[in-house]
């Protein structure tokens, strides 16, 4: 369900960061960092790296808040994109032997639920989920794995033991169906 108050509050806090309002920045961090930390953690799978990414990401958010355009994006998707890009760039620079799943998601303390579950526009979230449910299982699974684990076509091919051509086809057809379903 859409929680307009939460999304409005995050947008406002981000806009106040343009004015270099440190109190707003701290509130923004408290409200969004558990979700953004979790996003990074899933991709890099190492607590130390996820902490570095969170740090770099929030410094980027503070320094570039003036580039956020409230008429084109929601604050939460804008910040999520910054964090995911940093996590993906980080993991792809690392040698393969350094990348090991430490199982941190099994041991770290989860933040509270509640308002944190309503950081994104619920109407958009619901629409995407409905459209994902209309995809073939193989397409949906490949898109979810790519998003949540930051996997490339090659990594998906190895992980799913499926030829890369098939993986590319699943992803592309899945995205084209989403485009139609979401009227993009």
């Amino acid at each position, binding site marked *: 369900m859409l929680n307009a108050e939460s999304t*409005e509050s995050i*947008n406002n806090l*981000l*806009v*106040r960061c*343009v*004015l270099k*309002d*440190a109190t707003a*920045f*701290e509130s923004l*961090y408290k409200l969004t*960092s*558990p*979700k953004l*930390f*979790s*996003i990074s953690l*899933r991709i890099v799978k190492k607590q130390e790296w*996820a*902490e570095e990414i*969170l*740090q770099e990401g929030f*410094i980027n958010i503070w320094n570039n808040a003036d580039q956020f*355009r*409230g*008429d*084109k*994006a*929601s604050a*939460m*998707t*804008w910040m999520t*994109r910054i964090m*995911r890009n940093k996590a993906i760039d980080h993991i*792809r620079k690392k040698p393969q032997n350094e990348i090991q799943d430490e199982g941190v998601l099994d041991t770290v*303390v989860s*933040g509270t639920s509640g308002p944190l*579950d309503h950081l*994104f*526009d619920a109407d*958009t*979230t619901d629409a*995407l989920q409905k459209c994902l449910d209309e995809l073939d299982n193989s397409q949906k699974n490949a898109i979810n794995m*790519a*998003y*949540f684990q*930051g996997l*490339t*076509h*090659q990594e*998906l091919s190895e992980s799913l033991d499926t030829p890369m051509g098939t993986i590319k086809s699943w*992803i*592309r057809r899945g*995205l*084209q169906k*989403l*485009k139609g379903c*979401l009227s*993009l």
Partner: protein
Amino acid sequence: MKLENPQVRDLIAAEYVLGTLAGGARRRFEKMLWNDANLRLLVEKWSNKIDTLAAGITPVTPPTHVFTAIKKRLNLTAPTDRTEAETPASGWGKLAFWRSATALAVAASFVLALYVSVYLPKPEPAPVYVAVLNNEAAQSSWIIKTNVEARELSIETVSPQYITADKAFELWLLPANKTAPISVGLVQNQGVTTLTLPSELSVEFIKTAGLAISLEPTGGSPTGLPTGPVLYQGKLQLL
């Protein structure tokens, strides 16, 4: 990488947001984004949808030292937060006499500066109030800053607000006691507009009033009250 076919551009933008674009292709795409506004729009469009996938992720509270490090790197740490470990050691006993004398002089200047800053009266900075005006979709559209006592308002658009040539934006104060809105003046649809608040209104009245922007004919409301739709609203908060 050439991206001229609209369908290919769209698909590559989607793959970039999803994260499957890798290696040199990803780096080349990011370079293209710098100079291709239309491509950036495609990325925004896909990100607004695809990135809501993260809504389902269980949040994980990061350790407190991460934010401490962020504040330190951005120099947001208040002086009272500093630890003794961050203070350089003085090393008095090891210094030669002349160096001690220099240090004493420096210390004396600090004491003097401290005395001046603590004991001599200095003017209090005027409080600054800020309002963020949102549209109906809760998107932040205008930032208003004011030093209420100086009676000046600075109104800035978050991004250009498009209107036809026969329309104008007018800013209103909405009194806390729900009486009729008071016009402050017309505001430009982009950049910064500076307006002066009516001198007859008390500071308390202004601080507690709401702010709204309505769409009016060119030249402003002909009646002295909003005649068009109220598109943006917000309230002042102490910065």
